[in-house]
Structures are given as C-alpha cells and as structure tokens.
C-alpha cells in the first residue's frame, strides 16, 4: 500500500529524466558511466533512466513521438543526429542551444559534418555523444590466414569477391554473414555499397538529387549487391545482426558488414582484435567514415530545464565522452579524445576518424535522409534481397525519393 | 392466512398471450391447485402473484393489499409481498449449506442470530431434515432437496405459499410420500397455498379446489370430485382422469327416443339425458364415458355392445383393458377376476348414470 501511494504522488524533487535505448551489456554500462560523471558533478540531482530497447532504437522512436505529441517530454532523450530529429524540430518541441555550443566551445572540437548533423535552420539543437562507424567489414582472421587471403586485397569489391570465391572453392559456401529479420540489417549492407560508389553519388542520394532510375552509379551499386548476396547465408531472413556476427566468430563465415558495435560481440566471445578478427572499411569506402551519431537534446517543456542543460554539458564534455565511449565501443564525437583510454579497435577507429577524407551520415541509422525514405529504403533492400530485381530496386529508390520530396530540407555538403 | 384475489389478469410475451382474462379468488387457508398441460400459463399466473413477472394487464390483491395494478401503475416487488415460494428445480443456493439456505430469508431481513437458529431448528425438526443442516445441496437426494426448499419457504411463516410443480423432479415413490407430507404441513402451518402442477393425481389428491387452465384461460374451478364428476367441457373431461374418459363423436338421429349414431354404432341414451339434450336442440354431440364406468362382460346381454379385447395392462390391483368396437378404441378398468373370465370377444355396457354428453361444436357439457 505504501508503495502504491508513493508512486502515485509524483516526485517534484530535483530530478533528471532521460530516455535512451542502451539497455544491455556494454551499452548499459556506458550510459551508467556517463550518468556517474553527471552525478559526480551534480550529486544533488536524482537521475531517472527510462531505457526502451529493441529494433535498433525503433521502439523508442515510436514511444518518444507518442510522448512528445502528448506533451510528456522528458528532460533529455537519445536521438540519432540528422533527419531523425526533424519531426521534433519542425513541431517546435526542441529548444535551440546555440548559446550552449558557443559557451562550451564545442564549435571547435566537433568535425563539420557532425556539427551539420545537429543543426537545423542554422541553429544547434543537440549535442553528439558518440560516433559509430557503419562501413566496417569484419573478418575472421584465422580463416583469412588459413586460405591465404590478405586483408589488403579486400579494399575493392573485385578483391573482396575474389576472396569470397576462394573461400567458396575451399568449401565455405557462404562466406558472408548477414542478418535480416529486422530488414535494416540488409539495408545497412546496401548503404555501404552505395557509399562505395563515391562520395558524390552518396551526397546526391541523401540530398534527394537522384532522379534517374538508370543512373549507372545506382545500377552498378545494385549489381554489386546482387553479387554480394550470392555469397550471403540463405537464412539471413531469420537472423538478427548479432547472430550473423556470431557466424563469423564461430568461423562459419568469414565476413560481415556491420556497424562497429559488432566489436562488442567479438569481445564478449573472448576474441582478440588483430589476433582472432580484424576490421577494415567496407570495400570501396576507404577514407570515408559513415557516421552513426547518437545525441541528446533539450525538449521544450522539459520538467527540469536546468538539469537538462547540465546533462547536455556533461554529454558534450571530453570527460563525459571519454567515460562513455571506451565502454560503449564507439568513439567520441569530439576530435580531442584521450586515445589511451580506448581499446585496440577503437584506437584504430579514432585514427581513421581523425584522418578521414570524407564523412557521411548513415541513412539506415536515421541521419542522412528523411525518415520516410529511410523506411522505404529498408523495404526496398529487403525486397531486393529476395527478388534480386535490379531495375525494380532502382525504380523503387527513385520513387521513394520522389515520395519524400517535400522533406529534403537539408543540403548535405560532404566534400 | 390470507386470501388472494386476481382480477382480469393478462400477460403477453411478445406476441404470445401466456395468460388472458384470468379471474380467480383463492380463499384464506385454502389449498388451491392450478392444473393444466405444459404451456397453459400456470407458471405465468403464479409468477405474477409472486411479483417475479409484471402482468400486461390486471390487478392482484393479497388480502387487503393491492400488490399490482397496471391501471394504477402499482407494482410491489417480490421482496415486499411477504410470501414463500417453492420451485420445481428446488432453486437451492448451491454454495450454501442447508442451514444457510433455510435461514437466508431471515438473514437478509437481519433477524437476530439466536432467533434465526431457533427457527431453523424448529422448521428442520418439522420437516425431518435436522441431520442435514450442515450439508451442501449437492449432497442431498431429490426428496431432501425438496424438503429444504420447503423449509426455506416456510421459515418466515408466510401467510401465502406458492409452489410451482414442486414434486415433478422427484421419483414416483417419493412423489406419493411428499403429497401427503405437503398437505400435513399446510394444515400445520395454516397457510394459504397456491400450487401449480400438470399432474392430475397431485391436483386431485391435494387440492381443496382445483382450477384447470388451458391455453392461458381458466376452464373450470371446483372441488376435486366436482371436477372429476362434472367436467364442464371436453377439455376438462379429457384432461382429468387416467386413463382418460372415452369420447365418441355422435349424431342424434332420433330425438324422441334418444338414439345416437356413434363412431361405433347405435347407442340409446337414457331418458333423463335425452330430455336435457332436447332443451339444447343440438344434434352433433360427443358422448363421454369414464373407463371405470365401462363394464366388460364375457357374454352377450341385452344392450351390451360387442367389442374386441386387444390389450390388457396389468397394474397390480387393477387392469386396464384396451378394447375396440369397429374402429373406435375404448378403455375400461377391470378387476383381475373379471379379466380371467374374458376371451377375445367381449361385451361392454356403459353405466347409464355416469355418461357425459357434450356439444360437439362448443365442447361445452350438456349433461
């Protein structure tokens, strides 16, 4: 009874309510570390975390929209930088935080594309907390060694497919592992192939500038994906991304293209980077860093606006990011991270990040293109994986761009 | 003890007229039986008295109190009518012990604990169910259930007791016993009883008066012997009596001498009867004779009609002879002694003083 009545009375105390989708294993530990930093600074503020996991954050996206639409905004919530923020910005649910940016000197420490991703109409609306790389090809090192494949040859699609052939000849009938039960796993792979067709092409794609279904770059990308799928496990439609990674860990497949959160899976399985497994940019994407950026923002109508600001300051701080990212497996969005705190894969990633020629926002992970397109892109990729109809897929993509035409409000400048 | 007065009662269910133009006065302290075939509206009348059903039209008085009047828009709910009721399916509360069942009417009226206990003991004593007080209804036999239902109805000592076929779920043996039992209890409690049944034996054996219903209307009201001996129409005549009265379609061919042309042949009516018919000037008649007034003999006699013995039911102390005259069937009650003397061909004689004559078109009695 006591419990019942106490939860009835809503706490008016000094609180910070945050929503995010980091609920399990390392990701949970990471957000806890970030919260610990916050509480170290503001010990009198109680933090309420409301994690909502599932479907690469899709569930939480839906929940957040329902809550925000109903006027129940928390003090801060996680969102992918880029187009995923658009509905909130459009509806006026987010407060600009330009002052905070200048005050904290963040302008200088974040790279331009990342900054662009949290800016709408010239105003800053969010603070990036981490960067995941989407265009990573993971491989089982023992297998490559055994069959004499040099990772350096995997930088081009030709080299990659040659390696696949070699493995197949050696009895590994499906050298590439891919998931697909949530559809986005397939779209994720296709996105990296698009990136491999050149930054100009990718920029046109995410700016909604593609109009020709016979665009040779588009057709070429789908041809590559067509070939790619030949080497993919036929049961992809029933696998989650982590089950696909597990195939590589177990040595049933040699490769998988997945975001660098996959690193955690190798680590949990007790594998050592550089010894048991390796990671290189997806074929054809060397020098490009495809960004998956998580950020927090300040909702209008937050119940504790001051705490919300305090939280954002911690999120954007070097201390905060260096507490969060080593555990999370991502790298800081800031360029001034303390590289010594990170593991071997992440150190390599931080170097790549700092030296990247281009950075590109991911479509599949909510940043690069309007949600409407992203959502259709998942369906198209998934359909293509089963019907392999190149012209239908090309047409589908152009149609999806046209359907979302009104929503291309951002002009990405990637080069 | 109260009397019950019902005036011009009607009840329609949708388009079905379950009861119509029903007038009745039940006297104080009387055991009144409503008898009729299934669907004739008996339960509907009873439920109107109890207040379970609201009539479509009419008035009911219980003693001096008007309990329902459609004209005046008056309706007293059953709770306030101060009566007891016993149901065909016993309607015991299956989750309560016998004690709780019996005392339920007192408990809802918030009688004091000790009075409840006292009254329960007393009524259980009278009905011989003291040893059952702690059982649940599921653990009782039919007769025991019936007694419990009765105890529950009687515990408040209601001046009016309604019973809806209370015995029809009991087996034959038990029915006979309970018949006598119910009468005894009624006398002991000095309650006015209205009792519904479709079993004529019950009606005859228990009713001080009987009301016979058919298709929603009251056909005849009277004492058992009156109803048995002087049925006012063919329905009552055919309904009362087992085996039922033998009835034959007849035409009066010779009015002077009272000669009937019947299904089975000629029959000459006695003088007294002929005269009565003469007054009415009807020609198409129905002749009725109860089986016990059909005498079967083994040899020809003047006035006797020849018949064929086709089947005999032996019911212990008496026999039912099924006979045929031409194509007409006829039953007679005979003694085992008579039976033993019979061959296939027999002769029958009607008891002249006991024959009934009805108007064929209206069904009303003439003699």
């Amino acid at each position: 009874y006591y419990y019942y009545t106490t939860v009835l009375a809503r706490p008016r105390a000094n609180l910070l309510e945050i929503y995010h989708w980091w609920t399990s294993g390392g990701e949970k530990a990471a957000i806890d570390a970030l919260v610990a930093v916050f509480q170290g600074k503001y010990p009198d503020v109680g933090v309420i975390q409301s994690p909502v996991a599932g479907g690469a954050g899709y569930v939480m996206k839906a929940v957040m929209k329902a809550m925000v639409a109903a006027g129940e905004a928390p003090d801060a919530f996680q969102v992918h930088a880029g187009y995923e923020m658009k509905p909130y910005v459009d509806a006026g649910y987010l407060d600009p935080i330009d002052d905070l940016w200048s005050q904290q000197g963040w302008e200088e420490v974040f790279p331009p594309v990342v900054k662009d991703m949290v800016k709408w109409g010239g105003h800053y609306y969010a603070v990036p907390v981490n960067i995941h790389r989407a265009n990573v090809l993971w491989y089982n090192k023992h297998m490559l060694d055994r069959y004499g494949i040099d990772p350096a040859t995997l930088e081009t699609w030709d080299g990659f497919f040659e390696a696949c052939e070699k493995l197949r000849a050696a009895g590994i009938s499906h050298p590439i592992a891919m998931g697909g039960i949530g559809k986005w796993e397939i779209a994720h792979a296709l996105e990296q192939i698009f990136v491999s067709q050149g930054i100009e092409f990718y920029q046109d794609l995410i700016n909604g500038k593609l109009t020709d279904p016979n665009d040779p770059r588009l057709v070429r990308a789908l041809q590559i994906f067509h070939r790619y799928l030949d080497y993919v496990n036929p049961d992809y439609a029933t696998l989650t991304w982590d089950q696909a990674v597990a195939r590589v860990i177990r040595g049933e497949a040699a490769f998988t293209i997945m975001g660098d959160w996959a690193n955690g899976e190798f680590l949990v399985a007790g594998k050592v980077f550089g010894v048991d497994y390796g990671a290189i940019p997806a074929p054809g994407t060397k020098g490009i860093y495809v960004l998956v950026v998580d950020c927090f923002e300040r909702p209008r109508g937050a119940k504790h606006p001051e705490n919300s600001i305090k939280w954002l300051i911690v999120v954007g701080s070097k201390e905060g990011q260096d507490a969060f990212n080593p555990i999370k497996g991502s790298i800081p969005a800031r360029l001034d991270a303390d590289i010594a705190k990170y593991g071997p894969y992440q150190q390599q990633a931080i170097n790549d990040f700092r030296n990247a020629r281009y950075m590109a926002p991911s479509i599949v992970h909510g940043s690069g293109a309007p949600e409407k397109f992203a959502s259709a892109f998942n369906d198209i990729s998934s359909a293509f994986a089963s019907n392999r109809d190149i012209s239908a897929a090309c047409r589908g993509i152009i149609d999806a761009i046209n359907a979302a035409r009104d929503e291309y409000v951002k002009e990405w400048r990637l080069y | 003890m109260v009397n019950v007065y019902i005036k011009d009662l009607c009840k329609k269910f949708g388009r079905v007229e379950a009861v119509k133009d029903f007038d009745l006065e039940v006297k104080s302290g009387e055991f009144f039986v409503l008898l009729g075939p299934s669907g004739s509206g008996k339960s509907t009348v009873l439920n109107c008295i109890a207040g379970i059903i609201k009539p479509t039209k009419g008035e009911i008085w219980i003693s001096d109190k008007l309990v329902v009047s459609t004209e005046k828009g008056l309706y007293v709910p059953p709770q306030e009518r101060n009566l007891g009721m016993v149901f065909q399916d016993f309607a015991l509360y299956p989750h309560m012990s016998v004690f709780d069942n019996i005392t339920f009417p007192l408990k809802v009226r918030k009688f004091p604990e000790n009075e409840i206990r006292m009254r329960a003991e007393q009524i259980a004593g009278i009905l011989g169910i003291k040893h059952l007080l702690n059982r649940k209804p599921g653990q009782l036999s039919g007769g025991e259930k019936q007694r419990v239902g009765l105890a529950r109805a009687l515990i408040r000592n209601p001046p009016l007791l309604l019973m809806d076929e209370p015995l029809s779920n009991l087996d034959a043996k038990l029915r006979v016993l309970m018949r006598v039992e119910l009468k005894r209890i009624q006398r002991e409690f000095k309650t006015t009883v209205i009792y519904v049944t479709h079993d004529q034996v019950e009606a005859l054996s228990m009713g001080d008066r009987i009301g016979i219903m058919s298709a929603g209307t009251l056909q005849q009201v009277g004492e058992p012997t009156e109803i048995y001996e002087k049925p006012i129409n063919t329905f009552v005549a055919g309904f009362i009596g087992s085996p039922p009265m033998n009835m034959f379609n007849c035409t009066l061919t010779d009015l002077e001498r009272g000669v009937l042309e019947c299904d089975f042949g000629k029959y000459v009516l006695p003088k007294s009867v002929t005269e009565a018919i003469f007054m009415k000037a009807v020609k198409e008649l129905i002749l009725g004779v109860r089986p016990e007034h059909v005498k079967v003999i083994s040899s020809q006699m003047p006035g006797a009609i020849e018949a064929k013995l086709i089947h005999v039911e032996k019911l212990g102390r008496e026999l039912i002879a099924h006979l045929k005259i031409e194509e007409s069937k006829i039953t007679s009650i005979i003694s085992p002694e008579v039976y033993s003397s019979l061959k296939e061909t027999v002769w029958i004689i009607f008891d002249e003083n006991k024959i009934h004559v009805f108007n064929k078109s209206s069904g009303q009695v003439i003699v």
Partner: protein
Amino acid sequence: MNKASLVVYTALTILAFMYFLPFWSVLTTALKSDIEVRMTIPIVPPSNPTTTPLLKAFELMKQGLVNSLLFTSFATIFSSLIGSVNGFMLSKVKFKHSDTVFLALSVGIFIPYHAVVIPLITVTSKAGIYNSILGMTIVHTTYGIPICTLFFKNFFDELPESILNAARIDGAGDFTIYKRIALPLSWPAFIITGVFQFTSIWNDFLFGVVLTKGSNQPASVVLANLLGTTAAEWNVQMAGTFIYALPVVAVYLLLGKYLIRGYLAGAIKG
C-alpha cells in the same frame, strides 16, 4: 494399450514436443554462458550450465516484476469484479436498452490499442496518473471491462432464473442477490476471466512502455531491455523470459483444471 490409443498418444507426444520446444530453448539458453550462446544453437542443452544469467536477469527485473505483479493483480481483480457486476446487471437485472448497452460495450474489445496511445498519454497525464502503478491499474482495468463483462454476462445467462427468483422472494434485493448468490456462484467465471486478464495484462508491452518510466516500468519493458540495441545478451534475455513467464505458467498450472470447468459452466460459450 491398444493400437488406436498408441496412435493417439504418439500424435499427442509429437505435438507436445512442438509446443514445448520454445519453452525448452528458453530454458537451455538461460543456462548458457555468453560464449556458449554464441557458439551453439538454442536447443542444444548447455554443456556447462550456469545460473549467472538467471541471477543477473532477476536482479535487473526485480523492480519490474514487483510493478507488474502489483498492477496486474489489482487490474485483474478490479476488472473481473466490475465485469461481474456489469455482467450480472446486463444479464439478470436488465433494463431498457440493456442489450444495446452491452453491444456498445462489446465493441471495446476490438479497439486497436496503438490507435489510442497518444490520447491515452494525454488523458492519464491530465488526470495525474501518468507514470504510476495506479495509472496502469486504471488503464488496464478500464480496457478489461468489455471482455470481462462479456465473459460474465455469458456465464450469468446460463445461471437458472429460478435461483434468483427464489432469492427475490426470500426478501433479497438486487444487491443482496449479487453479493450473496451471484458472486459466490460465479467463481468459475472468475477463474476464466482472471486467468485471461492476468495473461493479457501481464504480457502487455505497449501501455507499459508509453505510460511508465524509470523504476515504474513493468516487467515486460524491463525484459525487452535485457536485449540491448547494439549489444545482445541472449542468455540474460532468455533467463529473463523464463522468470517473466513463471507467474503466468504457474497460474495455468494451478488453475488449469478449473479452467475447463469454468468453460463448461458457460463463461465463454457465445
């Protein structure tokens, strides 16, 4: 055993295997270590069983289980009780247009919940019951009323009229009849309704995820959270699943034999 029943039992056993499989794999995965989960397929029993995932899942889910248990039990009880009153009124007392009212209420059984989520947040938030066990209780109770009423009405329709008439004549009003007669007699309907409501409220995810936050989240949400977004702890997730399923399975095991009796008593027969 003769040939025919051998066939029947064989068929039953094969089918039982199919129906038991998910439960089995939940259990085996729950007892595996992280590494073994990644190295084996789900039905293979653990080579080296460990209770760590179970303990971990329990630790994480404790609060959620308490929350769920609270509002599930209360909402089950309240919605069944209200359903029994409504069912009784609509079946036995009846009034003008009671059939229409019943029909209108029954429509509520078929509401797509996703369509009402946003107004629901607004309403609960305005009413001050947003993010509270009380709010969850009220929402689940309310949305349970139509189906509970349906179950109870069907049940009471089968209850002989004569018992109620007897009680009326014995001097009981509607309320007394309900309390002393209908309520105690309707236990089979309570079992059916209770089990049905308990199962569906316990398994609900949508209302839990939008109407609660932080430590008020129900077990269903906490369970979903055991499987991360960018990290997959299947063993902990399955351990959580196992723990999460226990109360419902227990309810079925305990009340299974009464369920059939309840159904026979008419609670669901249309």
